[in-house]
């Protein structure tokens, strides 16, 4: 029976090609606009580490107090940490994994002396950074905890940098000249470039075209005076001078992340933070009440407004466009179906039940939806390819056409069109056979 309905639908659609094309175009454009903007939205607001994000937490300590907010309305503590607190938290080691980190931008002298020195981006981190974030390695691994304490000259490099300097060969154990000093390569990452750069949104803004090429031990970077290339925010001027002065100051410039697996661990860590705060307060450092934060990663990304609001506005507008297209299709289907009132009348008079009419017309709507979906698929592909024209590179490159988007596009198109066809179909099924037969 369904084959018969499909045949009927195709005949009917062929009878008014203009109207059919209009409906297919409307569905196609509406779906493509929604899916293209959705692909961008999905890319910027997705969870960068879905299997673990609820276990990763960012602690914040209110080291500045109300004065540091300069009369700002919210009660947010500074978004980064000063050096002393970061080191104290590392030393206490209360979480399963934890790492303080800061953004570096050292120069690297390639082993091939014919090449120019290059500037690379990266982070100074602790050894637990790698297991905490499930960082994948192509060769080797991260460094050990003893490398941390001994501030060993070791480095983990990206596969991209490995390709550039060593032609992609296993370079573990080789030395690399960073800022004029030799570092032993401990590991090569396996194409790891999470977007957003969730472990340090404070210094990267989340979405950036900069690449994380090197990771060196935190202590090592501090010892050799590898300066901070991220943001530095101060409530008062450092008393000492230079990078050492910055370390002694209350300026905040260090990102911090911990892994806490169980609810009890989270509560215990929060208690520890508050306890640490009170200890410092008793030592005379603070004069204001406890105001710490311990947010999990999704909440942190939200507070930091990592997903650009433009992408959300675009998605909302595109969904609006889809609704207009559906209303448009509903109107056209209504016209098309009711034009065939006499045909419906004959079918009903010959004994077709209402459900048969339903099936017949919903099949027709479904076919329009499928055609619209196929066109929408094509247009979505064009749209995803051309978002580079309207969006900044760091975001546009994240939007991609994959299998799930493909399926979603088709499903949205068909379901939307069938929804649009519901009312016209219902009207068609209410056609009184007697009335239609009489008028002839």
């Amino acid at each position, binding site marked *: 029976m369904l084959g018969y309905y499909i045949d009927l639908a195709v005949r009917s659609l062929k009878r008014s090609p203009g109207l059919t094309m209009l409906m297919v175009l409307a569905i196609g454009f509406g779906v493509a606009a929604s899916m293209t903007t959705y692909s961008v939205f999905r890319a910027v607001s997705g969870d960068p580490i879905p299997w673990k994000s609820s276990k990763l937490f960012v602690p914040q300590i209110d080291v500045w107090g109300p004065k540091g907010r300069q009369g700002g309305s919210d009660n947010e503590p500074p978004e980064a940490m000063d050096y002393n607190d970061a080191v104290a938290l590392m030393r206490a080691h209360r979480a399963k994994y934890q790492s303080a980190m800061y953004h570096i931008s050292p120069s690297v002298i390639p082993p091939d002396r014919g090449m120019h020195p290059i500037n690379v981006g990266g982070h100074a981190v602790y050894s637990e950074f790698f297991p905490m974030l499930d960082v994948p390695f192509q060769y080797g691994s991260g460094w050990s905890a003893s490398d941390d304490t001994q501030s060993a000259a070791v480095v983990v490099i990206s596969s991209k940098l490995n390709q550039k300097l060593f032609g992609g060969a296993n370079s573990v154990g080789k030395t690399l000249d960073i800022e004029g000093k030799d570092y032993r390569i401990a590991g090569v990452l396996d194409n790891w470039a999470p977007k957003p750069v969730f472990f340090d949104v404070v210094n990267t803004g989340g979405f950036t075209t900069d690449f994380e090429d090197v990771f060196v031990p935190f202590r090592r970077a501090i010892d050799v005076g590898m300066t901070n290339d991220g943001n530095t925010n101060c409530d008062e001027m450092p008393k000492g001078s230079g990078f050492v002065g910055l370390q002694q100051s209350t300026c905040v410039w260090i990102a911090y992340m911990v892994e806490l697996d169980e609810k009890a661990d989270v509560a215990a860590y929060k208690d520890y933070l508050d306890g640490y705060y009170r200890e410092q307060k008793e030592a005379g450092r603070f004069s204001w009440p406890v105001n710490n934060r311990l947010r999990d990663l999704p909440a942190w990304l939200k507070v930091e407004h990592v997903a650009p609001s*433009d992408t959300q506005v675009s998605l909302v507008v595109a969904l609006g466009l889809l609704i207009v297209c559906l209303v448009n299709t509903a109107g056209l289907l209504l016209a098309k179906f009711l034009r065939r009132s006499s045909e419906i009348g004959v079918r009903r008079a010959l004994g077709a039940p209402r459900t048969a009419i339903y099936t017949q017309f919903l099949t027709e709507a479904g076919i329009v939806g499928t055609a619209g979906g196929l066109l929408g698929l094509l247009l979505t592909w064009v749209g995803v390819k051309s978002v580079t*024209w309207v969006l900044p590179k760091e975001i546009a490159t994240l939007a991609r056409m994959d299998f799930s988007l493909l399926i979603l596009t088709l499903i949205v198109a068909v379901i939307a069109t069938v929804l649009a066809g519901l009312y016209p179909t219902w009207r068609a099924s209410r056609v009184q056979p007697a009335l239609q037969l009489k008028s002839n």
Partner: protein
Amino acid sequence: MQIKPILAAMRRHKAGTILIGFQIALTLAIVCNALFIIHERIARVSRPSGVTESNLFVITSDWADNSSNNNIDAQIKADLAALRQLGSVQDATALNSFPLHGAGWDNYVRMKPDQIHMTTDSAVYLADDHTLGTLGVKLIAGRNFTPDEVQSLTIQDMKGWPAVIVSKDLAKVLFPNGDALGKEIYASNNNTPSTIVGITDTLQSHMMDSDDNAYAYNAILVPMREVGTGYVHYLIRARPGQLAAAMRDVPKTLIAQSRMRIFDPDDGEMTFAQVRAKAYERDYGMAILMGIVSVVLLAITAAGIVGLTSFWVGQRRRQIGIRRALGATRNDILSYFMTENMLIGMGGIVVGTLLAIGINLWMVTQYGVTRLSGMYLLVGAVVLLLLGQGAVLAPALRASRVPPVEATRSV
């Protein structure tokens, strides 16, 4: 034209009428908001930087070696001297950041050292005596820095700033009476006052975030050379017509000064026009996207009106024939369909206006956009009515050509 019979006929095809009206309403609501976003973005993109942007470019030198601050300071001085010697170069300056750059240094500004609530926030440009000349920014009061005033500074090693030049907008925020020149403010984080020795004409800050719109024209120039950050921005004004030549000469000259530096292949050297394009990339993108959506929406709505009206005309051929046979002119038939469309359009516009305001209010709370101005609703309403009339014209003309003899034919 009598409206009553049209309304009576509409009651016979309620659903179609409502669907078209609803489509017009939604289109109006979305297009108004989209146009409004476009307008906002264009307004943002066309605000002045205060900089004379032609013949200006920026080159960023990353230091490849871990040289001492003293060496870097000497290198910057030598670089600038060499650059200013070039035939294609009119003037050159070293800065920590510059208007439209997006990243840089901003400080809270206070009127008293112990003030808790900031007076305002301002960009801090670490500048020299050539900065105003290179940027092409006029001094409207006071004096420029002298060469001797310019000192070296590491970002962590803060000295007091005895003399500063401020932008005219910042001067106005700090001293609304217009007597800023010679006054003291607290702009550095250590508690020593800075005397305003000069006031510039309009000068934009580096801050591009829409959250910072209130501070977009606040700038303080401090006579310092920043070292210890690993890079320096040179802004260079080429002699008229020699921009391309200067952009070739400058990297060569700098490399000749010292090989231990890196120019980023992507954005190491950019004309100010490129700086501007990059700074407003998102705004252009958003405006284009909203433009495309608006055009598609209007096209689909127009096509929908054509489609549905054509259907109605087909459905009523017999009635039209009867009317014609009873003496109605072609014009009567034409204006019947035009008026019908006008009525539906107006209904849609009433609903659409409410929807547009609703969507805008929602976006105000969610995304901090500004309130929609009534102009947009008015323009949008007129555009949609005209669009509807245009779309209905073809089917209405077809209707008017239905011959009276149609009345005698059975279906």
